[in-house]
């Protein structure tokens, strides 16, 4: 079958390949994406399933200060420091005394799907008291461009499912046809024989998927 050496032409990745790609992704992120904390590799060696080479990537406690101004066009990852002056755009039912009340925390996990042979992004949001955020609230934290993408297209959708390993409801982003656009990425690049080295698989994948949740990666990671 497929070795872990290359991404097969069909845009999918094996379990072994995922482990390799994950480490390469985490390492480059740590080096080149200094505006974020690093990803950690969480091995799956709980008591009953001892496959040491398996695991998933985790990035947790990312703070997104939610924007109160709904007309923001760019990435709404900053707080509006002068929100008191924009009263007409503010939802008057929200009385914010303290900036901390509006801090939303996000956890992201990149988990391999053995069924579809592609990665999946699981995420959840919670407020500072640990209370989970609803999808409606989360959508307000997403860049407005991706919200319209989600609402209008069938390309990508968010579902709520049990985390495959943590036994709690999380949100999952499963873009349709992941393998198709990974294939396109391979073909349009200068890789020999359109074969993307497995080390770049997750970086390429995340360059697209991350944007949906407002996580951008620097261009240098793609080189």
């Amino acid at each position, binding site marked *: *079958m497929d070795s872990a050496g290359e991404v097969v032409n069909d845009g999918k990745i094996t379990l072994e390949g995922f482990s390799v790609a994950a480490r390469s992704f985490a390492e480059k992120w740590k080096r080149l994406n200094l505006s974020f904390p690093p990803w950690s590799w969480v091995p799956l060696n709980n*008591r*009953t399933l001892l496959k040491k080479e398996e695991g998933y990537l985790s990035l947790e406690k990312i703070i997104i200060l939610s924007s109160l101004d709904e007309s923001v066009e760019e990435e709404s990852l900053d707080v509006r420091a002068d929100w008191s002056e924009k009263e007409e755009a503010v939802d008057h039912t929200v009385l914010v005394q303290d900036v901390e009340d509006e801090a939303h925390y996000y956890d992201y996990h990149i988990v391999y799907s*053995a*069924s579809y042979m592609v990665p999946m992004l699981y995420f959840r949001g919670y407020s500072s008291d640990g209370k*989970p955020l609803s999808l409606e609230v989360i959508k307000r934290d997403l860049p407005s461009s991706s919200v319209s993408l989600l609402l209008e297209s069938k390309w990508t959708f968010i579902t709520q499912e049990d985390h*495959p390993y943590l*036994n*709690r*409801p999380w949100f999952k982003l499963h873009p349709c046809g992941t393998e198709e656009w990974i294939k396109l990425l391979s073909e349009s690049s200068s890789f020999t024989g359109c074969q993307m080295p497995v080390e770049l698989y997750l970086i390429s994948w995340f360059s697209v998927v991350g944007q949906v949740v407002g996580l951008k990666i620097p261009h240098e990671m793609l080189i």
Partner: protein
Amino acid sequence: MAANEEAVKYVWEGAIPLQIHLHKSEVASHPAPPPALVLAPRIGYLPLLVPLIKPYFKDSLPPGEESIWFDYKGVPLKWYIPTGVLFDLLCAEPERPWNLTIHFRGYPTNVLLPCEGEDSVKWNFVNSLKEAAYIINGNCKNVMNMSQNDQEDMWTSVMNGDLEAYTRLLPKLKMGNIEDEYSRKEGLSSPISGQGGTEIDMAGQVKTARIPVRLYVRSVNENFEFLEDVPEMDTWDEISYLNRPVEFLREEGKCFTLRDAIETLLPEYIGDRAQTSGEEGEERTTTDVSEEAEGSQETRGEIKLIRIQGIEMKLEIPFSWVVNNLMNPEFYLHISVLVKAPQR
């Protein structure tokens, strides 16, 4: 053909007698209502039983909005797992009737996915069917290409436990075949028709087939001799869930058994890489064994029980027979495993 039909019929007719109690905090009538007795199809789902159960309790409920969930001995039950699987997994010693508690309030949203009744269950079913199709065929086109009406009819046949209707609709699904020497030799074929699930790759070699499997492993720390001695489960965290296809290897003169399949999923418990007690264990745990009194190899993990559709399986059965006859209507084979955990 005859043997297959009979086996599948048994599976579809399998049912668990339930005794449903209203949670005492929600009893607003005096006297408290008696429990409801319901026969639950194994291949069905708990939320689908609500229309049958609710009439028993509606006069006893306090006013307010409802969000319905079930628990077994305090453990909230995941509504998207088929009822038969829940029973096989949570009741080491089968309890008949199975005593469950129903709640109409206080939905534990931190541990249970929201459920909007039949719609949620149907959505989950169709999604699982698509995932199974992707595993068997390499794509879910066959499900996407089904007309809306056919999809609806298929779901209705599952909801009603109508095997005849389901069998009539199967050819429209065009799911790939899961064949092997066993069914070919005996002249049996699965009720599924359509293109084969095995692909020939460019070198003309037969590739391995992939089988949709959902494995539920319940791990117990203490050793036990009888199932009734298995301690009660406190939380779902004691269960490891593995949603992973089994790669079905076809080798000349060799039969791929259930043991082989389990070995690919739980190599640490079975096969050459297993850390089992007995002669086969090659790898031995040398970690702290300070509690070893008797000198027996208590540090190993061990599979105690494997249940599929309520049947305790013999591992020598050809895996393809197991799949073709014991899978659920969404083409997934659900396997419940009880293990004694290795001691550290």
